[in-house]
């Protein structure tokens, strides 16, 4: 149990998400940095080297805040051995909210950028869509991490099977180090 709680949290249903060794589905969405957003394909990013793609809950929810703080503090993409790793997130939040997140989390200098996917189509493509209980009509990705090489082949995959659940940051970091 990721958070060490002594009670059961919600189990999520099985998914048919892409696995290690498979090529990650390509998609194009607005990609937000601290100054502007622009339609960008995942394959545009992998063309420049490996990509860490993080699906997270909507901006403003605490797991998103905690996750970006953790990644920022670990300096993924900026350690000496990271070469040209690109780190991007994705949530259903709008580009305006993403800009605020980039500023509030202090990740603009790290060039961590966020894909905006309000209709949750990418999560559906990856079979990780999650209908939120108590928020009628709202679906978002379940927390997930995909580490891709320059051919978009998945080197490490993790998809939450409980809600809520956080990535195993040490495992992700080990996978980055193995690239």
């Amino acid at each position, binding site marked *: 149990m990721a958070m060490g709680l002594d009670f059961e949290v919600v189990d999520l249903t099985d998914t048919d998400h892409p696995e290690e060794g498979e090529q990650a589905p390509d998609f194009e969405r*607005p990609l937000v940095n601290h*100054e*502007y*957003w*622009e*339609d960008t*394909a995942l*394959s*545009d990013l992998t063309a420049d080297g490996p990509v860490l793609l993080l699906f997270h809950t909507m901006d403003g929810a605490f797991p998103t805040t905690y996750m970006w703080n953790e990644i920022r503090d670990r300096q993924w993409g900026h350690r000496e051995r990271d070469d040209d790793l690109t780190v991007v997130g994705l949530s259903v939040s709008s*580009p305006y909210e993403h*800009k605020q997140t980039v500023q509030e989390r202090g990740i603009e200098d790290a060039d961590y950028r966020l894909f905006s996917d309000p209709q949750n189509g990418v999560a559906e493509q990856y079979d990780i869509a999650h209908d939120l209980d108590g928020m009628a009509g709202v679906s978002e990705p379940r927390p997930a991490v995909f580490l891709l090489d320059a051919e978009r082949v998945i080197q490490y995959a993790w998809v939450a099977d409980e809600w809520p659940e956080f990535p195993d940051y040490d495992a992700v970091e080990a996978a980055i180090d193995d690239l």
Partner: protein
Amino acid sequence: MSDPEITLYRLQACPFCERVVRKLEAYDLDYRSRFVEPMHSDRDVVKRISGKRTVPAMVDEATGVTMSESANIVDYLDRTYGDADETGGAA
């Protein structure tokens, strides 16, 4: 995917920006859109490329031109990419 030569810095729902978009589409030009902040004071990227914080602003790498103001941009697009008939002696 090759990068388009024209980059348009725009604001969502800005009529002056839509005016430029209509012209880009009329001439079937390949362009990329970069959406910036409603807050004028936060538009540092636009200031960096054009010297001003106003949108629309356009960069055309084919000609090395950067410009602001929709009337100027439309006029430029007519002169550079339009048929002689359509410029209407705008110069």
